[in-house]
């Protein structure tokens, strides 16, 4: 509005208002008709003309008329809910591993998979036909695709580390008897030495005694650790289980993406093209139902 230049203020201000109102009415009427007929593609065009022109009609430089578009800002949640029906149906076929939960009108959480344990993976931005992935979760998936090239899994290193710690602890438990025998032998050696120590103790005697005391301390430390070892082992096993679970979730996710898209790169490409691909699938508005059922066959 500001861009428009009108020299003759007196006449033009009212005609300007009339034109603007007419444009707003036209916009609302078109949107109303598109919604009424469930012509979702047209609705998307009306909601973001600039993007539509660029990605569907390949016309750049088509500015959005914010003055008319802002009219429906307060209907964003309802429009999102309305448009989600066809979009989620489409995504059900193209991204069969995503599940959605509408936690409030027009707002959808994405869940990756319907397997035993699954991750919340971000949100679905219906109005912009876009996944808004949880960056932390997404990074894990990306990382595990990278690791898969080296035949490794996301938590493999940590699992290995904890497992070898468990092996060490189990060793402490298993060698309790040897430790006890050693302790008795060290103690009796110490007694012998103590018997020989007096006011004029030789340096060698002192050294040996210190060694024996240290040895005894080490054995006692190990004994102390062995006493709580089985509890620690059990706790570690639980940690390993939950790490393995995360590995499993990631492997299910990788498998799903490979089954559907062939590779992670193709998955990312599909995400980038989602808007264009989805609107193209809507076939101008009238025949999209025919398109969907053709896909089903």
């Amino acid at each position, binding site marked *: 509005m500001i861009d428009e230049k009108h020299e003759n203020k007196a006449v033009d201000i009212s005609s300007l208002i009339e034109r603007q109102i007419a444009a707003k009415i036209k916009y609302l009427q078109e949107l109303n008709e598109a919604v009424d007929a469930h012509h979702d593609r047209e609705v998307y065009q009306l909601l973001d003309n600039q993007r539509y022109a660029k990605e569907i009609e390949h016309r750049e430089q088509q500015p959005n008329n914010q003055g008319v578009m802002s009219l429906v800002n307060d209907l964003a949640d309802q429009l999102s809910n309305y448009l989600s029906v066809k979009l989620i149906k489409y995504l059900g076929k193209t991204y069969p591993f995503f599940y959605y939960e509408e936690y409030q009108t027009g707002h959808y959480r994405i869940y990756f998979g*319907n*397997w*035993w*344990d*699954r991750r919340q993976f971000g949100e679905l931005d219906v109005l912009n036909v876009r996944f808004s992935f949880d960056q932390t979760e997404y990074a894990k998936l990306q990382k595990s695709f990278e690791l898969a090239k080296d035949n490794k899994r996301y938590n493999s290193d940590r699992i290995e580390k904890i497992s070898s710690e468990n092996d060490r602890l189990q060793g402490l438990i298993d060698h309790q008897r040897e430790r006890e025998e050693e302790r008795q032998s060290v103690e009796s050696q110490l007694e012998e030495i103590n018997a020989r120590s007096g006011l004029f103790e030789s340096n060698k005697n002192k050294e040996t005694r210190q060694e024996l005391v240290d040895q005894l301390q080490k054995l006692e430390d190990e004994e102390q650790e062995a006493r709580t070892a089985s509890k620690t082992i059990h706790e570690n096993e*639980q940690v390993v*289980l*939950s790490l*393995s*679970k995360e*590995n*499993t979730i990631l*492997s*299910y996710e990788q498998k799903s993406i490979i089954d559907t898209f062939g590779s992670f790169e193709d998955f990312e490409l599909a995400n980038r093209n989602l808007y264009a691909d989805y609107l193209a699938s809507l076939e101008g508005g009238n025949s999209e139902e025919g398109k969907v059922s053709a896909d089903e066959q």
Partner: protein
Amino acid sequence: MNNSKTLSSSPRERLTVLADSFKDVLKMGQKYVDLVDQLAQTEDPQEMLSATSQLVKLDLQNAFVDFPQHYQAADYYLIFMGRLLEKHGIDAVQVSENVRHEFIARIEPIADSDSFKFMVNGDEAAFTEQGEQEPLFYLDLKNRLMQFDNRALVNYFIVRALTSHSDLDLRNAVKPLIAFANELQTDLDFTINLGILNTENGRSFNLVQPDLDLTVIDQLFVATAENDYMLMNLPKNNGAQLVLDQGIKLDIAFDPDDYSQQWFFAVNDPTAQVSFFDTLLHYHLIRKWYLDNRSALAVRSDKMVLAPDEEESDEYVEPTEVFTPQVGTLEEDGDQHDE
């Protein structure tokens, strides 16, 4: 045979009593021969059952005629089973007599390794594998009941026999036992309980334990990462579903509308031909998980027990000691009725 009575009688009376006693015993002997004949000859399942029911109760011990006790109750149960299967043309169970005049059964295709006998305890006879004394099923002719023992089925087939036989062989070995159960049901109106051998969809097998630690299911989930099967979440968060080959699905679940949250196993497949037992037998993944966590996952046997009949309990004849069921050896780790 009451001495105080016979002593006070005249010689003539005493002879009459003696003759009557002989007549009774001989009559019993004749009845015995007739029943043996009936069991051997009849093609009518009702008559097979009737002859067997009487033979297993018949006590030939008496003071007058020394009938050699040729066969025991356990043998008649086995002959009955063999005859009924024979009538239906099933020859996978071979019943034969050993040198001690005991009948034993061998089942193709595991006939070379294991043999089976009935162990009699009151009205109930347990079809028992001889090596580890696993009672695979219980037969009660009087109350017309036949029920498999889930725990013994797992112990014998899944834990033990699978180390020396293929899953296919064992599945074939189970078939004639299921056929016997079905014949009892159709021919003789028995109530049967196939337990974990049941292949009907919608059958569920409750776990013994009232609660299930979900980390046990986590373990199965983690194990699936190594192969092509996936463990899915059930829609109402009431458990998990393992998706296997050819549309076969194994659920470990509870009824979401039941506040007690009783966990159970259930197998569903498109043709209703796969039992929970079959999944244990065929899938290493399931078997290993089940056996590793058996204390948590064991399924109940749900054995039907009938209240003892007071009036007839006096007529019950204790079987000779050879057939005293060795209940103690069955209780390897806990309640023998729980799988």
